[in-house]
């Protein structure tokens, strides 16, 4: 414990021993306790350095954050209160809450919200369950375990565009492999892109395929941190593997599960690339009846295809508010969980 302090003191003295060195990174790391004394130019510089340098060091992140996140965020809020067309960005007329009222009474918005929720559930729940199961299997001593782990991660490493293109062909109405399989099993063909549930299922399956391995890997990492003696004592108590999984693994994974749930929920709320590419040429419509148009797609369609930037901004902010609500619910749940422990 004492070593770091000594090292610090050492570096400090060495810096003082070399006057004229410009204020730099080494000085910022110095401890407190400047000697009080005459306020010379150098000590003033030194004190200024002490106070300002840390801010200077962390500033790159905040400058970038402000330029590329905060300003656009606030600007979008400003846009959402105006009528703005993509073709006339400088010509904004005050709209008040018109855009939001418009959304509130728009079937398209509620439809998109509903789709986002249903696709979110159909994609997230099986995805996390499958990931948990796969992680459990991978946690056993396996021959070539690294190979399996890499294989699990391959879908995640594939680009959305490539994956979706393949899935679109698999799900194509005539000549697609899925319908061929269904035919083989004695079912009629499904118009995957235009049917209500079929299209949502198809989009979800792309999400599941891409993200299951990633989540499995996170679970696996957490599983390997569970002390083995817990399993040993459970085994001594006569618990079989399933009971061990239910009563040891899952409770120990609770924080990890919560983390993946939150991350997947955020991902599901912003779902965009998969349905857009799945839809092909007019993908931003999300099907002829908007049966798989998510909020992200609706925003894109309004903003970039149709050119109603004001309304698109209002959709963006609505999505943001929805995420805040989800975050709040998550916070409550976490507290509840902690208390119950």
């Amino acid at each position, binding site marked *: 414990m004492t070593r770091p302090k000594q090292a610090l003191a050492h570096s400090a003295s060495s810096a003082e021993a070399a006057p004229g060195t410009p204020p730099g990174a080494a000085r910022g790391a110095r401890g407190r306790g400047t000697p009080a004394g005459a306020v010379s130019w150098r000590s003033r510089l030194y004190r200024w350095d002490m106070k300002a340098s840390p801010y200077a060091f962390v500033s790159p992140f905040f400058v970038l954050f402000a330029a590329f996140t905060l300003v656009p965020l606030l600007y979008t809020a400003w846009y959402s209160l105006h009528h703005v067309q993509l*073709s006339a960005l400088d010509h904004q007329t005050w709209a008040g809450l018109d855009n939001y009222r418009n959304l509130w009474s728009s079937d398209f918005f509620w439809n998109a919200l509903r789709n986002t929720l249903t696709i979110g559930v159909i994609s997230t729940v099986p995805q996390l369950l499958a990931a948990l199961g796969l992680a459990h299997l991978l946690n056993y001593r396996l021959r070539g375990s690294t190979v399996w782990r890499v294989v699990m991660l391959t879908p995640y490493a594939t*680009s959305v*565009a490539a994956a979706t293109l393949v899935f679109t062909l698999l799900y194509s109405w005539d*000549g697609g492999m899925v319908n061929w399989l269904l035919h083989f099993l004695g079912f009629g063909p499904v118009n995957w892109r*235009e049917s209500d549930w079929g299209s949502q299922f198809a989009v979800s399956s792309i999400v599941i395929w891409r993200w299951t391995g990633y989540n499995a890997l996170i679970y696996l990492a957490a599983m*390997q*941190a569970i002390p083995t*003696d817990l399993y040993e004592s459970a085994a001594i108590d006569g618990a079989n593997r399933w009971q061990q999984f239910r009563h040891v693994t899952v409770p120990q994974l609770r924080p990890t599960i919560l983390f993946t749930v939150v991350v997947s929920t955020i991902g599901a709320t912003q779902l965009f690339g998969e349905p857009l590419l799945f839809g092909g040429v*007019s993908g931003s419509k999300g099907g002829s009846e908007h049966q798989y148009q998510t909020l992200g797609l609706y925003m894109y369609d309004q903003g970039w295809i149709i050119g109603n930037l004001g309304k698109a901004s209002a959709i963006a902010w609505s999505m943001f508010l929805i995420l805040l609500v989800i975050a709040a619910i998550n916070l409550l749940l976490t507290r509840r969980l902690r208390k119950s422990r």
Partner: protein
Amino acid sequence: MRTSIRRSQRLMALAAVAALTTGLLAGCAKDSDDDASDGSGGGNGSGKGKITLTIGTFGVFGYKQAGLYDEYMKLHPDISIKENVTTRTDVYWPKVLTRLQAGSGTDDIEAIEIGNITEAVQTQADKFVDLGKEVDKSQWLDWKNAQATTKDGKLIGLGTDIGPMAVCYRKDLFQQAGLPTDRTELAQMWKGDWSKYVDVGKQYMKKAPKGTKFVDSASSVYNAAVGGASERYYDKDGNVVWDRSAGVKKAWDAAMTVATSDMSAKLKQFDPTWDQGFANGTFASVACPAWMIGYIEQKSGDSGKGKWDVAAAPAASNWGGSFLGVPTATRHQKEAVALAKWLTAPEQQAKVFAKQASFPSTPSVYTKLKPQADTTAYFSGAPLTQIFSDSAKTIPSQPLGAKDKPIDNAISDVGILQVEQKGKSPAQGWDAARNEIKDVLGQ
């Protein structure tokens, strides 16, 4: 215990590395997908006195393929040309719009698609150089110039190609279905109205070869029919009249007959499955503008050689076409205008036609056009030039509006698609299109 923690750390590191790499890869993939080479634009001069002109295009314009850039650079050794291609117009156009308004980042020449030209004319006219004074306007078809001309007579874009319509059909399938295969005979059968073409489809379906349909989709019939109406979504004064327009109603009715009968292969144009349809010969005809000729030849492949033929369309109509505009923000206005002028001049348009059958908007070359011998042979020796130029000369001038494209999407991709693929009634489809258009227009 200790080893397990270390292993888990290693796993986490693996995950992190994987995440980072895929992020990078995905970034690359996306870039190459959207912007083949999205340069800084603005036309940076490089070297001593050498000017680099950038030209922003979408899809395949064929200038590079026809060797026009090389030719121009040879003629003007002080100029070098760089083309920034974006594959999809719906990605290309928003980018151009924002850059035009920012006054920076535009290319020295920007291509404008017909679906966006009215928006450009009505909202961006002051961002483009008036090319009317630079060229002899009589070189172009009147209706082509009209599309790029503002109310006060400013010409913001020079016409490149146009899309005069014909009907491409499979002779072998027509014959099996007991229909005539001669192109003039067929043209006579459906002459005058697209609904007559649909009637031929009914006849085809009575004896259709197994696994084939008459036409690729209902919206292709709609599109062809509405492209020849003298009025569609806007009237001359810029009012939205889509639900009162006779042209739309007629085209809609023809499309509804297709959608509610069995004659459509129910494909969506430009989907991979549509391409497969060409390859497998699952539909016997398609309304084809001139630029689709090359597409059909490519997608149908060797199996379709000599089986396709081209007949005159029931009525003259236009689908597609583009313009070249010069943004005022360019630093090399004089050079950019000269290049745009040269690229759209009749001789150059003829060269592009010879390469990839993009049909010129300058009628003076119509008698001199030479399609590739291969292409003519592929389409059973059909007189392509004559069919398309006859159509081009009789296309009516159609008033377009700023939201033409979204309205068109709403009718095709929502209204017609619901009837064709989801079994809705035509009335339900019309209502769905109406709601969609309300949303588009922000009412």
